[in-house]
């Protein structure tokens, strides 16, 4: 293929993918205009959506970026810069379209991002990802980029440029409930993680020291994972409702069959397996020579565990934190279905009312949280395992 068509080698194959995605994005409607939030809207394309020549200017700018990305062998830094510029342009266009199309004083109409916007955004996001993956930045640079991206995202939202878009209007109508949902969501995800560590870490140590316990404990925890989340969340309600009503003192401790408690318990149960099995795997991977040496210099078994084995097992245990946190941030959405709060309440309310913007208001921050948690913890784990390699030659 390559030898048959020499001119093609001057083109970057990934650049072709981004250009094709972006071109379709430019061709499809940028936004949807809806007379009210429930009805199906009408697509408006980029040229028509922006006032005057702005549409042409933005379209040409985006096309130029995509075309520049087509050439193979451009500097990666330049590509990254272009992609970021493209992301900025697509957000600029979305905000401008919403400002221009929203009739003054109309509280019912909605301008939502449509396929065109999402594809443009995707094309530039992929372009940025590709450039970053090839640049292979070090841990610090990646941490700085993550922080920068989070800051930029928050900055764009805080600037008010997108305030006229549908999702932000839904947000404005529920700002208070949104921050409450955010805290509930974080409480569910981090609270279940904390509980899983309080119970799982000792359990992992126990099955490491007492071999016969290992199989039954891991089998039981594995079986818990096969219960579909919807059912596990559902079954917690009657169980803890009963406990709260019949066990004296339980209700005072916060045990309840309604609200966030059953959801917290379901997430806790899902989180146990990664914590217990990774603790055990981490401890088992400590070399016997290291253990013997620690015992040889006169440490007690408890000291060996605390000062040698657990620190060495730390990266593997932290990998469990990553698994649990990413998984539970996602699963906590289900809590919305059983009245447990969190971003899931927006998602399921939106599904019930077929209000797509409300679904986005719940789903987008959930994805954002999961992404930041996943990437951030990857960086922490990488840092720690490097330190470990450095200290044990």
């Amino acid at each position, binding site marked *: 293929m390559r030898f048959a068509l020499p001119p093609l080698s001057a083109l970057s194959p990934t650049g072709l993918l981004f250009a094709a995605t972006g071109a379709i994005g430019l061709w499809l409607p940028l936004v949807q205009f809806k007379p009210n939030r429930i009805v199906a809207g009408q697509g408006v394309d980029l040229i028509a959506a922006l006032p005057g020549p702005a549409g042409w200017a933005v379209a040409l700018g985006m096309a130029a970026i995509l075309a520049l990305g087509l050439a193979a062998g451009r500097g990666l830094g330049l590509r990254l810069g272009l992609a970021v510029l493209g992301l900025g342009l697509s957000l600029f266009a979305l905000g401008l379209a919403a400002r221009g199309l929203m009739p003054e004083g109309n509280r019912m109409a909605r301008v939502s991002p449509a396929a065109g916007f999402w594809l443009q955004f995707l094309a530039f996001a992929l372009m940025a990802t590709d450039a*970053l993956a090839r640049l292979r930045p070090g841990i610090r640079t990646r941490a700085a980029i993550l922080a920068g991206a989070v800051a930029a995202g928050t900055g764009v939202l805080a600037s008010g440029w997108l305030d006229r878009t549908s999702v932000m209007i839904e947000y404005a109508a529920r700002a208070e409930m949104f921050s409450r949902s955010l805290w509930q969501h974080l409480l569910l995800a981090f609270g279940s993680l904390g509980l899983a560590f309080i119970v799982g870490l000792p359990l992992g140590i126990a099955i490491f020291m007492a071999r016969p316990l290992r199989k039954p404990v891991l089998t039981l925890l594995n079986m818990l994972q096969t*219960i579909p989340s919807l059912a596990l969340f559902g079954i917690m*309600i009657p169980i803890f409702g009963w406990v709260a009503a019949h066990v004296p003192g339980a209700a005072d401790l916060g045990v309840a069959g309604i609200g966030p408690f059953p959801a917290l318990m379901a997430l806790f149960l899902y989180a146990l397996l990664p914590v217990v099995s990774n603790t055990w795997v981490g401890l088992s991977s400590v070399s016997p020579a290291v253990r013997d040496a620690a015992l040889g210099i006169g440490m007690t078994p408890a000291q060996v565990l605390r000062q040698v084995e657990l620190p060495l097992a730390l990266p593997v245990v932290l990998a469990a934190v990553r698994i649990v946190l990413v998984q539970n941030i996602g699963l906590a959405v289900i809590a919305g279905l059983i009245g447990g709060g969190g971003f899931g309440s927006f998602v399921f309310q939106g599904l019930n009312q077929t209000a*797509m913007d409300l679904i986005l208001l719940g*789903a987008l921050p959930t994805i954002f949280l999961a992404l930041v948690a996943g990437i951030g913890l990857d960086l922490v784990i990488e840092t720690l395992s490097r330190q470990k390699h450095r200290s044990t030659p």
Partner: protein
Amino acid sequence: MIAKLFLTLAAALLAALLFTPESFTEVFRPLTHNNAPPIYLQTSLLRLTLSHLALVGIAVTASTLVAVAGGVLVTRPAGREFLPLARTITSVGQTFPPVAVLALAVPAMGFGAGPTLVALFLYGLLPVFENTLTALSTLPPSVLEAARGMGLTRRQRLWQVELPLALPVILAGVRLTAVISLATATIGSTVAAKTLGEVIIAGLLSANPAFVVQGGLITGLLAILIYEAFQRLESWSAHRAGLIRPQ
């Protein structure tokens, strides 16, 4: 031995639940109150299970075909340019919550089986792709060298050497995808897909734990059996390819 007995029991229990659900009336009655029906009868459990499995089967087959093809493509010289991007997408994409993916498919697809199918398909791509990539890029170089030395063409090497050797690891990815999809499909019922989630949601709405347990139990049993079936398939393919794997 114990595992085998346990699996046989699981299969028998599943069959009994699906074919003669009425015989479990007394088992589930203690879970209900105010004379609520103990067994879900609006749609037969068997039919829901079949449509649940069909949904998962279609999605998993589609994502396996696309993901393996993609994995092969990016490990060939022609597709190597896509490798860094593909790796990043798989690791980042797997942090996307399945529920959010499902919810986002609704605006694009409307209600029903469509968005569930799309969400399961998209989400299922990643584990299979990741495993295909790992398997194909960590094959022993000596084996590949020998295949080249024997005069096999690229295509022959792929079909007769690389893919058979990679199969156990690819199947492990498919297993992961199948088990995740099986559980995620229940959530599809919140957007009106016909799955076992319907039973669970009916239980949630009418505060009837018997329904919740039924739906959960059947899905859980299916997950255990499918997991086990794939593990058998994996060790069979490993034996066939002449790989020695510790059991």
